[in-house]
């Protein structure tokens, strides 16, 4: 189980494309799963509720999404997997450096960090290394 798993939740496919590309450049072994909004990701978790293998190492979560936004996803996940945060590092990745969003983020203890887009390659590199070292 050396493979690192990343879930990307974002409605911006250019972002998804770029992030995927960068992650593959960091390590071709990284498993990536994309969701175009919170609801889609949530549905996936619901469908595989009893499969521990689907729990990723990292979730990069966008805030502004059409059906279910980042906050909505976090709320719903809290109900579904209250202890998800112990296994998964959830990062907000958003283009917003809005005060409101930043202060809301502080209220979620489950969050591992908050990135403002564009997320640089170095950040992702560090992130991968810290995950590998944890393992």
């Amino acid at each position, binding site marked *: 189980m050396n493979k690192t798993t990343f879930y990307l939740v974002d409605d911006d496919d250019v972002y998804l494309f770029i992030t995927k590309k960068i992650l593959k450049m960091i390590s071709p072994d990284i498993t990536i799963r994309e969701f175009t909004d919170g609801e889609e990701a949530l549905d996936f978790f619901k469908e595989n509720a009893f499969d521990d293998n689907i729990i990723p190492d990292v979730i990069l979560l966008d805030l*502004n999404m059409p*059906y279910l936004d980042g906050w909505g996803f976090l709320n719903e996940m809290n109900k579904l997997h209250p202890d998800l945060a112990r296994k998964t590092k959830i990062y907000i990745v958003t*283009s*917003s450096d809005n005060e409101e969003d930043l202060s809301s983020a502080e209220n979620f203890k489950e969050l591992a960090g908050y990135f403002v887009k564009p997320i640089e390659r170095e950040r992702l590199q560090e992130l991968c290394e810290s995950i590998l070292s944890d393992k």
Partner: protein
Amino acid sequence: MVRKALLRFALLFFPLLIIALFWSNMQLKEQNNTLFMHEKGKLEQKTDLAVEFIKPIVSGVHFWSSFPFDSATDTSYSEKIIRFMEAMPNYDQFRILDTNGIEKLRLERNQEGKIIPSTIFQDKSDRYYFIESKKLTANEVYISKLDLNIEHGHLEFPFKPVFRCIAPIYDSEKVKIGVVIINYRAEQFIKMLSEHDKGSLFFITDHYGEFVSAPHDSAEFALQKGVKWSGMSSPVYQQVKALEEQKDTAFLANNEIWITTTIHLEEAYKTFVKSPSHNVQLVGNTSWKLTHYIPSSLLEQRNEPIYRGRMLFGTFAFIVLLVLSLVLANRDATKEKLHKRLNQSHQELKKAQTDLEEKYTDLKKVSEKLQTRNSQLREFNYLISHNIRAPITSISTLTDMYEDAKSMEEVHELNPKLKKITQTLSNLVEDLLQYVRILNADKIATKTLDLKEIIEESAALFIEATDQKTFVINTNLEAWNTITFSSIYLKSIIQNLISNAIKYRSHERDAYILFKTYKEKGVHKLEVVDNGIGIDLSKHGKDIFKLYKRFHKQASGKGMGLFIIKSQLEALNATIEIKSEKGVGTIFTITFNNIDNHE
């Protein structure tokens, strides 16, 4: 102010003046009456006075009547009489006439007042007083009328008014030898009888119509003198003459007083002198009428203090009341002015308060507007942070990637992404422009709109949905149908709502949308109800009216509709709320607040 003062003055002064006049008139009447009674009493007492005056003279004559007279040569008799006469200054003559009327003894007072015996004896047998007295018996005394003395058949000059007191006289043998006559000078008697206040007129007439006493010397004894005086025909004398014919009278009329009283000397004497030792009887027919006339001029003169008092009071009251009225009017004016000023300040304060209230309302409206604006700005900020920044950062990353690209393959891979971002940005700019146009509209043209018409117009756009009878548009616009709003916005809102209702209808049942109007506390409300699939508000509630939020994957839509509806409503001070239940339907409630103040 002056008019008011004069009015007040008149109201105070004239009643007071009338009372004062009334009162002073009463006083005048009272005073005149008192004077009248007083003068009447005084005149009635004159009979007593006359009797009192006569009494000693009568006694004197009676004394000599009972004193025997024998001889005219008896000097002792003459001496006794002279001594007696000297003590009686008004005794003018003392005579004894024999039964034929020839003087037997004559003592008279000369110019120097000395009593001297006369040697010239006259025949008085034809004089009325001898004729009337020659039959007198013992204890009888006769008093003649008042007239001027006559000697030797001629009026004595200067005129000498006298009356004569006569009694029978006897000798020692008690044989009547004639009469004893005392001539009494009547000036003092007349003066006493006619004594009166200065200014009034006093008359004494006898029953022959002779004026014994009158205000004018020419009138006195005019008959005896045989002179005609023109003044006798004057009204006053005529009135005296007229009253003479009548009984005693007293009246106060035309501000004049007339009082008459008659002295019946013999009767009065009988009444007043009732001593048992005194058995003298007065005979004759002597009577005088006393007339006292107090002319109006004298009454006026006597009443002058009252007139003066009245005048003084009037003047005093006039001045005091005038001053008082002016002072009061002045005070009233000051008071009124003060009151006016107070009222004015009150009005000003009230106006200021109203102004403040208006300003407060304005401020409140502005504040509400600002709050809306603020939340719109926040919204805008959010849009910028999320929706614009994201593609831009993507572009910068893509640009980096272009630079790092190691093969044409890689570059080709990037191209569609760049194109997509361009499209996204282009759409975004389009949408934002629409939004900003709503936000920025300074003056949105509003007019009175017929809601039913707008709904019908909008429904026509969805003819394909409604034609299949699977979707019905219902209205209940009884509460209100017209509203002042932007025509473009309202049409857009209605169209969006119908579009949503069709898009998110439930295929399990016949779908409908209902537009229902009602009023709540006078505020126009529009309820839009559908039986569509509904929205889970617990999940999406806070995002409902946000841009690019979508809640149902099965339907197409870019998440603009509700966002634009909300923005358009807010631009005209209206609000929208949502109630929804998944699988049951949705209720939108639009509240049209006053739009008079929008900018």
